[in-house]
């Protein structure tokens, strides 16, 4: 196992190196550079543009730039953004990351739960009306033309009904009354949400492992759920940060629902296929023959074993939340990582574009490893040696 881990880590470093090189080459090959933005500005003469190039190190030969870039990358220095000079790339990523992570982690949790639940259901009722309709609806939403769908939802809920805000993640009129950093609020949302989920998970796990009587277990579960809800409601409605967090969450509803609707189909179909394979296994037949209730066979014997591929894809999806969604973020003008990357690419901001791509790359590579390890942990038949 350790040997496997070591081998994989070395492979990750090599893969990352190749990936960063390809990113560098592709971004470098783009025509023009940052100084071209000022080409139409008569205030900035050619000499000033050349001075700009010299100061940013863009007039050096390619290989020197490449070596400098690699040296900096492996010492954890992603450089300084050109378009938002002199802010370091790290600072920009740190600023954008919580927004994207908060939105997309919530959306990912939502669509995976929905997809898992529906997939379980339609596989069990295979061939029924619900199976066909859920599959067709899931596929159509999965392949829907995202910009159009998001704009329609925006128009219906934001414009026509006026229930939800149109774009952006906060209400400036509210925020300017308080001098509180937006990222602090995002940090609280992610932190409190994560803590609540962890607490609930531990309580549910303990409840199962301790073999308590059914009634007591349910009381504990409901109590924990009530406690968490009460604490969250208290935090949201009593503090200033809670007020601002409510504002953010209010802005988050529509994008989160859109992402959920678009993405749940994939998880649902994955779960359905996995379920269909498991239901052919002998132990499911044995459980049925034992006379267990249908629901118990479905939930305890089939669904848990069918969960494996879904968990793997969940880990990968979580890793790609740092990437954000360029389409979603553009339509909802949600200034997260996706928009940062798009903006960097369009403005030829090389360090920022490379930095954002490499950063998401590291996440994805590590997530691949975590998914593999988790797979071996969940399915003892798999051994790495």
């Amino acid at each position, binding site marked *: 196992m350790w040997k496997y881990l070591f081998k994989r880590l070395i*492979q990750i470093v090599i893969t990352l190196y190749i990936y960063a090189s*390809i990113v560098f080459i*592709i971004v470098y090959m783009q025509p023009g550079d940052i100084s071209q933005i000022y080409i139409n500005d008569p205030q900035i003469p050619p000499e000033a543009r050349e001075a700009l190039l010299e100061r940013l190190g863009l007039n050096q030969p390619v290989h020197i730039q490449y070596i400098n870039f690699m040296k900096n990358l492996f010492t954890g220095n992603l450089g300084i953004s050109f378009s938002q000079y002199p802010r370091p790339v790290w600072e920009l990523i740190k600023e954008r990351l919580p927004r994207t992570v908060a939105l997309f982690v919530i959306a990912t949790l939502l669509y995976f739960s929905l997809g898992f639940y529906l997939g379980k259901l339609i596989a069990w009722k295979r061939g029924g009306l619900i199976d*066909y309709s859920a599959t067709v609806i899931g596929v159509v939403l999965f*392949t829907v033309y995202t910009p159009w769908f998001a704009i329609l939802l925006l128009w219906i809920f934001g414009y026509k009904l006026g229930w939800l805000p149109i774009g952006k993640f906060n209400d400036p009129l509210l925020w300017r009354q308080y001098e509180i950093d937006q990222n602090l609020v995002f940090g609280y949302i992610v932190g409190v949400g994560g803590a609540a989920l962890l607490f609930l998970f531990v309580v549910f796990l303990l409840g199962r492992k301790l073999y308590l009587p059914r009634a007591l277990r349910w009381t504990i579960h409901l109590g924990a759920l009530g406690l968490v809800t009460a604490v969250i409601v208290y935090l949201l409605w009593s503090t200033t940060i809670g007020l601002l967090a409510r504002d953010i969450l209010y802005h988050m509803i529509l994008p989160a629902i859109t992402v959920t609707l678009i993405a749940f189909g994939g998880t649902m*179909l994955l779960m359905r296929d996995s379920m269909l394979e498991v239901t052919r296994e002998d132990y499911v037949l044995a459980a049925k023959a034992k006379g267990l209730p249908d629901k118990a066979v479905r939930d305890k014997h089939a669904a848990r074993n069918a969960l494996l591929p879904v968990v793997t894809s969940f880990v990968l999806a979580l890793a790609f939340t740092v990437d954000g969604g360029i389409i979603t973020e553009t339509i909802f003008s949600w200034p997260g990582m996706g928009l940062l*990357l798009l903006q960097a690419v369009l403005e030829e901001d090389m360090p920022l574009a490379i930095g954002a*791509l490499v950063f*998401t*790359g590291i996440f994805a590579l590590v997530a691949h490893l975590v998914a593999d390890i988790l797979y071996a942990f969940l399915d003892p038949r798999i051994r790495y040696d």
Partner: protein
Amino acid sequence: MATAPAPPKSPTGRHLESPWRARLRLMRRGLATNWSLFWESRIGPIGLFIILFYGLLAVAHPILMATIWDPEIYDPIIGYDPNPGPAWHMEKVNQYLVPKHPAPPSAKHWLGTDPWGRDIFSQLAYSARAEFFLGVMAALITVIIGTLVAAVSAYYGGFVDTFFMRLADVVLLFPVIAFLIVLGGMFQLNMYSLALVLGIIGGFGGITIVLKSQALSIKVKPFIEAAKVAGGSHLHVILRHIIPNLLPLSFLYMMFNVTSAIFSEAVLSFFGILNLQMSWGMMVQMANISGYLTGDAITKAWWIFFPASVSITALCAAFYLVGRGLDEIVNPRLRKM
């Protein structure tokens, strides 16, 4: 007079059929079974009908242009209709009746006209051909590359295998849309180059991993050993024994790749990155840049972006559904018990 040699007799006394005919009969029987499985999946045929519908649309466009449509009016790119229907479609400016575009759907323009006075239905049908071309082309390139790479890396293993698998990891790391935006800045991407780029990215990406795991399970089958013992070269084993057994799965993934290619085109067009005259994505983008996707304007001229958006969704979903239908044939574990 020489008599023709009598056909060989089988042990039961009946005439043996020629091997070609036997093969044909088996193929027909296989096709019939597969077709009934595909039909029973129910979702597959839905997709197939939608694809057929758009296929007919694509075929109908040049015929309509050559026969009943006046090219001056109905040309999808440079057409203009100075008289888009009844009087209430016209606007009065200084006593003169001036055509009002976008004009709503009417008998003359089934799906109305766009802000520049072009017929939407003509644009839709004209673009259908390009979408089919792009989707099928990109998917074909993906599948050819993916199948070859998977077969080779499963057969040889070792360094070749590691190389292609890590390459797939690297390709999977790229946020495809962002990458294509960068590429769109470097090259003028049109349908051909876009199909090529999407095909290559897809071919070295996730599809190789899936196909390789299938190729690995084929590689350990006894007939591969038998082919090697009989003196088959590496190339022979790969081309005649591994790849034909991979093809059903490749074909299945081709359907999913058609979906992603059409979708990518539509999204990139929406961002205004592709160099195309007309496509479904461009139709939505043109509605967007002329302001018909913002605020209340959505209700003013729904017909200029609804047909294209619905078509993108429908065709993407159709290929995906066909893929799901084929899945039940290729993947016996999904069949009904």
